[in-house]
């Protein structure tokens, strides 16, 4: 079902008129209220009145994760704090999170985008939604929550963790839709099987999974093991949270970007040029309805391409292909963003160890595992096993505290981490997407 039939099926010309008007308003507003954007536009010699067509978008400067960090925590807010009703945050490279705010209207917009996304997956007001996205600073839990309520579905705010309880709820509460990261969906499927539950025994019909990259093979596996129809949902907290784009269950070929709220572009990450239709490159978003922290040409670092061909579902919104990688070194492990530099900062802070490390990511069964190899220099070394094991534990604990990710820490001999041209290879990602 299409939740907002008027907007989601707007003819291209009408949609572009809406986009232009909203873009102009956004640029005017950020120029007037966010010192960062005033300076950026002045430096580029552009006035808000110069934006006369959507073609002018590419004249505007980019916004990067670093810009958000430089303006930590509230520097990018375009409204006074009294108008902000919610604050979320995502992990950042220096250990400081990226902070985003929402006005009451932003939350309404977000709820509608989630309601649209759930509808695209097949969910209706008659469904019971089992929401296993984490609740808290992470946008996943609360994002899905308010959208499901707006749709009128019966939402169970399960949050993440405690697999046993999840299985009990899935069995006894009779949810018809499941929302979580795809790797957690697979984990739940296997836990259900171990508990002796057969695929057809649960009442699940729909799955809305996102927060990390996943493959078609994973979709097939989840659909078979949980006996449901699964779609991919995309979003990032900087832009809104989940619900920036979603697949329709009719096609399951690319995610429809809610273009009446976000304008996507694909650029060459090196030259920063806008690439022609269909080309693969870095995804860039401009939010055109957000009040609290609108972003102009935000570089997501996600690699994908845009497909403007009409879709069988009737939505006129452009489709982005499933994200295939990153243009920086960020890893997504069990839905959590991890930058190698964060691990480095953990090691740097511990006087005992040297920051010679390597991250190895594997998918064991259905869960991502992170192994951190740390070279043992003479400053760390001891002739006692328990001392070295205590160091391994301490590193793992510090990583868990800063990043919220469990890591398996292994001490290795010096120089055993492969170096090419003198530079250590920091990340080995053995997962296949």
């Amino acid at each position, binding site marked *: 079902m299409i939740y907002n039939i008027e907007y989601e099926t707007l003819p291209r010309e009408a949609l572009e008129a809406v986009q232009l008007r909203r873009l102009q308003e956004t640029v005017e507003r950020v120029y007037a209220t966010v010192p960062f954007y005033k300076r950026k536009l002045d430096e580029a010699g552009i006035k808000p009145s110069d934006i006369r067509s959507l073609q002018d978008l590419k004249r505007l400067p980019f916004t990067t994760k670093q810009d958000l960090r430089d303006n930590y925590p509230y520097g990018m807010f375009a409204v006074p704090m009294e108008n902000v009703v919610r604050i979320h945050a995502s992990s950042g490279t220096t250990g400081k999170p990226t902070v985003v705010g929402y006005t009451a209207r932003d939350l309404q917009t977000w709820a509608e985008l989630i309601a649209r996304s759930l509808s695209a997956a097949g969910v209706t007001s008659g469904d019971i939604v089992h929401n296993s996205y984490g609740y808290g600073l992470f946008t996943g839990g609360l994002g899905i929550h308010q959208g499901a309520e707006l749709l009128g579905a019966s939402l169970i705010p399960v949050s993440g963790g405690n697999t046993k309880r999840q299985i009990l709820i899935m069995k006894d509460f009779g949810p018809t839709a499941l929302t979580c990261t795809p790797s957690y969906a697979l984990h739940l499927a296997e836990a259900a099987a171990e508990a002796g539950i057969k695929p057809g025994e649960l009442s699940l019909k729909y799955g809305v999974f996102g927060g990390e990259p996943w493959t078609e093979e994973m979709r097939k596996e989840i659909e078979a093991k949980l006996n449901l129809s699964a779609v991919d949902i995309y979003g990032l907290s900087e832009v809104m949270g989940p619900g920036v784009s979603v697949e329709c269950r009719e096609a399951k070929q690319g995610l429809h970007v809610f273009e009446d709220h976000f304008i996507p572009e694909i650029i060459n990450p090196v030259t920063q040029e806008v690439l022609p239709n269909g080309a693969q490159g870095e995804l860039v978003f401009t939010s055109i309805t957000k009040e609290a922290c609108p972003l102009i040409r935000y570089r997501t670092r996600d690699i994908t391409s845009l497909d403007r061909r009409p879709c069988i579902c009737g939505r006129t919104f452009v489709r982005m292909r499933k994200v295939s990688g990153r243009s920086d070194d960020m890893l997504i492990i069990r839905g959590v963003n991890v930058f190698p530099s964060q691990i480095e900062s953990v090691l740097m802070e511990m006087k005992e160890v040297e920051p010679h490390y390597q991250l190895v990511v594997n998918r064991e069964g259905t869960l991502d595992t992170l192994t951190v190899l740390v070279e043992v220099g003479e400053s760390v*070394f001891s002739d006692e096993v328990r001392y070295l094991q205590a160091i391994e534990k301490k590193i793992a604990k510090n990583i868990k505290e800063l990043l919220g990710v469990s890591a398996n820490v292994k001490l290795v001999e010096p120089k055993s981490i492969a170096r090419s041209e003198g530079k250590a290879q920091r990340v080995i990602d053995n997962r296949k997407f």
Partner: protein
Amino acid sequence: MDRVEQISVFLENKAGRLAEVTRILADAKINIRALSLADTSDFGILRLIVNDNAKAKEELRKNGFTVGKTDVVACEVNDQPGGLHHILKILQKANVNVEYMYAFVQQSGHNAVLIFRFDNLDDAVKVLKENNVKVIPGEKLYTI
């Protein structure tokens, strides 16, 4: 001197790493007096007493190994049942904690040599000597 210098080497739990250490020592004509290996599922610590500590350390470091140095205590007991127990009883009575230990038997004579790693080496040596345990000085052990 009542203490013996022991070198320790960090080893990954990978095939051939121990042989690499013994090759380096053999090439440098260094004789191993005693050794023990402590291991976990992913790494091991090789502890060695050799006839030339400085040279052994230098050669191992040159080959990229992480090498540490610790002072341990060597003492001699009769190579007969109850020999080790006699010493451990003394230490237990004096409430001296042993971090780890290993032993070897001398070719000549009828004695066994015990190598102890203590938290507090000086106190331990004092207790051993008070109980008439023969503590072997480093210089003597290196050249046995």
